Each structure stands twice: as structure tokens, then as C-alpha cells.
């Protein structure tokens, strides 16, 4: 996405993209936590576990927070569903910015879709990692 678009309009574009199911990857989705949040701050995301991995047949729920400096700074992302991934803090589900390459190399034209796809790709790269029971939440 274009990086010089102000936060409000940038997040509005992302909202429309998410609402109209225009995401290029159908295995991820996101939307506003509260449909009347005019600050566009708090979002819910989902990732469908990629096939032929230990994440297969599971839906992962995430919380995404786009703070006042988004997209100059990455969002804060936490898994609500328990997941064993190298970038995810096992105590609370938080995606650690230093361990997640999309956040470590963040650019303002990255967006929530790219973030979720990045996490899905991390699942694919770690497809044999043992996983907690399906449905466990932080």
C-alpha cells in the first residue's frame, strides 16, 4: 500500500479491503473489533492453518492493535489461540517484534494482510513443530 497516505485513510483502505473480501490470500481475514471504532485502532484477525502442516484444520484468532504511529510502526499482534511458533511468546501469545521478520524489517507500505500472511508463512516454515491442543486459548 502507498506509504504516504495518512493513518486514517490508510486504515480505512485496509478496512474496505478486509470487508469486501478483496484480500489476495483467502486464508487470512481481519475486521474492526468494534464496528463503530472511528479511531481504527483495535482489530480481530484470523488465520486458517495451512494444509499439510501441524496447523492444518485449525482457525487461529488474533488481536491486532494499530496504534497512533501505524503504519510508520508495525501493529501490535497477539495470538488468542495457543500456538507454538518461534516468534510467539509462549506465555501470552504476543508476536515478538524482534523475532518476527515482517516486524523486524517493517516498512510503512506493509499492512495487516502482509502481517497475517507472514505469520501463516511462519507456520509453513515450521510445519512439523508440535502444537497445543486445538481450541486452547491464552
Amino acid at each position, binding site marked *: 500500500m502507498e506509504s504516504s497516505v*495518512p493513518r*486514517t485513510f490508510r486504515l480505512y483502505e485496509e478496512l474496505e479491503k478486509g470487508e469486501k473480501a478483496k484480500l489476495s490470500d483467502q486464508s487470512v481475514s481481519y475486521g474492526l473489533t468494534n464496528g*463503530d471504532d472511528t479511531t481504527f485502532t483495535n482489530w480481530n484477525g484470523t488465520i486458517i492453518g495451512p494444509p499439510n502442516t501441524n496447523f492444518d484444520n485449525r482457525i487461529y484468532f488474533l488481536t491486532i492493535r494499530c496504534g497512533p504511529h501505524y503504519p510508520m510502526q508495525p501493529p501490535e499482534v497477539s495470538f488468542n489461540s495457543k500456538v507454538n511458533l518461534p516468534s510467539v511468546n509462549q506465555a501470552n501469545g504476543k508476536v515478538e517484534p524482534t523475532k518476527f521478520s515482517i516486524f523486524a524489517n517493517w516498512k510503512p507500505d506493509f499492512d495487516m494482510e502482509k502481517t497475517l500472511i507472514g505469520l501463516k508463512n511462519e507456520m509453513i516454515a515450521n510445519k512439523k513443530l508440535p502444537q497445543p491442543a486445538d481450541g486452547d486459548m491464552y
Partner: protein
Amino acid sequence: MQYSSAVVTPRIMKETKLLLEKTPPGVRVTVSEENPRHFLFDIQGPPGSFYEAGIFKVEIFLPSDYPMSPPKALFRTKVFHPNIDKVGRICLDILKQDKWTPALLIEKVVLSIQWLLGAPNLDDPLDTSVADVFKASPEHAEKTAREWVQLYAK
């Protein structure tokens, strides 16, 4: 050719100058320090309307191909109005690509938004649940609209 939206064209400079020097009545404008294509407006509700006592924050952003494409505008103040939805989207003809012409100005957009507050259009609602209240009970619509002004637009 795609212009970076950070580029300020002579047209935008001229419009900005006009907006700052001859701001229409009932309107305050600030140009973003980070992005000269980004404008923050405070728009007073039109006298005699349900919204007359309120000041409404509206953000306007000029896309990279402005004025070939219309400005983008969003309410940042919650407002109970059939043509403005929960996240601040505005249903207004001149903001649509096929109704916009480059002869229009940012000022015209702002004045149209102010006018829209006083002239809810029930034939083309954006939030149908709000439009239903306006149709079923104008008194109830007025009460809620005025309550929201007190809650959010002060």
C-alpha cells in the same frame, strides 16, 4: 503517470491558500504538518438542523491523482445521520468518481458535507438502520441526533 502523494501541485497550493485565507463561515481548517495533502476540518452543524449545536471533525485527503480523482473524506466525530455510517464514511454524490469534476474544489466538498448534515437524504441511505429511524419516527431521530451531538460533537 503516478505522482507521489507527498507532491504538492500548484493547484493544491492555490486551494490551500484560499482555504486558509478565506475559510468559509462555520469551518476551521488545519493542514497536517506531516502531509500537505491531508486536511483536518472542524465543521459546525448547520443552524436550524439537528446538528446545529455540534462541531464535527472531518478529515480530507487528496489522492495522488487529485484533481482527476475526488478528495477522500471521513467523519471522525460520531454522528447519527442516514448518509454517514458508523466509521465515518460519507455518502455524497460529489465524492464519487463519476460525479466529481476537477472544476470542484476542496471548499465545495466541505460546504457540501456541512449542507448534507442539514439535509439527510433518505432515498440513498448509507446506514439503513439509521434511515429507518428517520423514516419511522422523525421525532425519535431528532432526539437521538441531538443526544449524539451532546455526547460526541462538543
